[in-house]
């Protein structure tokens, strides 16, 4: 359907459940998200779990007799909506896909709820939806159901998106901080903190926009292979808000029988992100990532894990950054380049507002 001039912008009528709402759903959302579940047009999407389990089993070899689901939700309010390396739509799918896969759940379906500000350009909305649809299909998930609300001008900042997701957890997969033990290796799938640095740069205009790129990337394909028990993965987590340091602190606070010792020398950073961070006095270990997972595995499988990750572009920069230690229980410590040490506490203050 062609939108006439008057209908190029979102109005409150697009959210009242009437004709304009339906037009918007069919001309934008269904157009890009279309799939058999959504096109049933019911109040909720119906998922045939066994069918999905069989399909994933065929592709990956994992078994699903336990029928264990992983479920997650997250809201996205990033500013600016479009940044170097992604946009709010890509981020909204990425975040939820990553939350599922790091829990050991292979993503199947997501939902999406849009809160849109009156006056928002429909063309921009379409670009965001298109980006969501592309990211979803590239990662083997589909949008099973959705919702749209419109709020008055000034009541939200353009558009906010909520996505929830469900995934299937293969038999025998049980990732948790309680599994961590002394000597385990700590791996990150790429340079830390790029997303936070990128958003900061987009807002402040400090250095050339294209020189700092977000790491925003779904990791379902890359990480699902690691669920094979031969890797012995103990726990995985995506280092989003609060960055790597905060994520590691979550591990030691949930299992304080050990400490984590990072090696400053082993951590490499993306050069431009590091320069920007140094100029602004920001620590990239506390800066958000949107496409980096922290993986804890036995030291014996660390090289296999790194070899697996190196096969994919998004995780080709994976590196071992430290070890789990019996010392400094309940703390994250970094051994500095010159051989000194310092604690890496949980992040206290936001380094940047609204980054995801």
């Amino acid at each position: 359907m062609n939108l006439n001039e008057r209908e190029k912008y979102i109005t409150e009528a697009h959210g009242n459940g009437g004709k304009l709402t339906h037009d918007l759903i069919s001309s934008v959302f269904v157009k890009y998200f279309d799939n058999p579940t959504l096109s049933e047009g019911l109040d909720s999407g119906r998922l045939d779990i066994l069918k999905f389990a069989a399909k994933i089993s065929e592709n990956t070899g994992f078994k699903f007799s336990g029928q264990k689901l992983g479920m997650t939700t997250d809201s996205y309010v990033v500013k600016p909506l479009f940044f170097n390396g992604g946009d709010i739509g890509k981020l909204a799918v990425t975040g939820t896909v990553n939350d599922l896969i790091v829990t050991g759940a292979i993503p199947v379906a997501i939902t999406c709820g849009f809160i849109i500000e009156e006056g928002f350009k429909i063309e921009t909305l379409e670009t965001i939806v298109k980006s969501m649809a592309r990211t979803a299909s590239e990662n083997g998930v589909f949008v099973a159901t959705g919702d749209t609300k419109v709020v008055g001008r000034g009541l939200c900042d353009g558009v906010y998106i909520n996505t929830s997701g469900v995934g299937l957890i293969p038999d025998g997969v049980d990732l948790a901080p309680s599994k961590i033990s002394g000597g385990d290796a700590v791996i990150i799938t790429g340079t830390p903190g790029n997303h936070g640095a990128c958003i900061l740069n987009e807002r402040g205009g400090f250095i050339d926009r294209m020189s700092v790129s977000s790491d925003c990337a779904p990791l379902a394909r890359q990480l699902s292979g690691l669920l094979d028990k031969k890797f012995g993965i103990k726990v995985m987590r995506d280092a989003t808000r609060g960055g790597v340091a905060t994520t590691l602190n979550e591990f030691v606070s949930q299992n304080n029988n050990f400490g984590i010792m990072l090696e400053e020398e082993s951590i490499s950073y993306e050069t431009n992100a590091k320069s920007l961070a140094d100029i602004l006095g920001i620590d990239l270990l506390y800066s958000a990532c949107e496409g980096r997972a922290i993986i804890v595995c036995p030291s014996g499988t660390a090289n296999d894990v790194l070899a697996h990750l190196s096969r994919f572009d998004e995780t080709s920069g994976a590196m071992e950054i430290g070890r789990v230690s019996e010392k400094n229980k309940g703390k994250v410590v970094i051994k500095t380049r010159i051989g000194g040490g310092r604690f890496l506490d949980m992040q206290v203050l936001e380094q940047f507002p609204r980054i995801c």
Partner: protein
Amino acid sequence: MSFNYDEFSEKCNKKETAKKILDKINAYCAAIDKASINLMEVCGTHTHEIFKSGVRTMLPDKIKLRSGPGCPVCVTEDSYIDGAINMARDKNFIITTFGDMLKVPGEISSLKKEQGAGSDVRVVYSPTDSIEIAFENPSKNVIFLGVGFETTAPAVAFLAKEAKERGLKNLFIYEGNKTVPEALKAIANHPAVKIDGFILPGHVSVITGVTAYRSPLAQSGICGVICGFEYIDILLSIETLLKMISEGRHDVINEYSRAVSESGNAAAQKIMNEVFEARDSEWRGIGVIPGSGLKLRGEYKKYSADDNFAAVINRAGKTAGTAHHQGCKCGEVLLSVIEPPQCPLFKKVCSPIFPIGPCMVSSEGTCAAFYKYGSSGDKIELE
């Protein structure tokens, strides 16, 4: 003594270099016949780098690194902040300030709280951002909070010159700039402070040059090293201080010669001297230090908020001098008489989220550094 950092950075194995310097530090330390050697860094950025690089954890126990009053926000007295708040509360005023000042509690409130209550308080990244604000708001008095050491004073002086050249009638400076060398002298002679050597600030020295420290430190008999901001700079400076202490010398040595010259930045000094003159100034925790503050002079006096709005600044609520928040020991922290974990409020009620004193408020503050890097008395086991 000085070295080319870029060249070093490319060619050297940092760990090995650090180890070599540390070996020397250990040797000097053993040779010095003292129970403890107190070295004070007088720059918030040094404090942070010392923690970040782990230098503290590598030094012999005998060496005590003390953090001095090196954060301009932290040494700003309550009465100054209360005066700024009194102006902010008046609808005829717009306050422009560096962001760090916003959350600092005075005796009556903070600028952040006043902003929330409707006062027009704006964060600027350069003092000259105030010029446009003054042009856009001809009916308001725009007040820039001139807080900072020699590193910001030239920019504040430039603001006064610009105001004059553009004929602005509604732009004023609330005078709070302070200078470092006079304060060092006061600390060196303070009865409660026991210092064997100063790690002197790098950025401030770029402006002042080495000369500015010679006479104040010579009189006190304490040695000093002007230090850069890389951890190797800091280790080298400590080594140099120990060498001087072991030889009984009290010179000022410039380790940061890749940025600091003997006489400093002449252009910056010229504009400062043209616009400002020295005056006595009150430092939180230390008291009034003669000649350690800057006041607008001559034809620039008319841009002084202090002179023009004394009645507003001194309205009810403003404290007479440095008031102490109950239990807050920022004063003692600034003099390095205690370390932050010894303050009863540290980490218990005072944190970066709910800061009580300025040393926790400012990101450069000593308490903020201790909090951020988690050294609240815990010992790190490295091997």
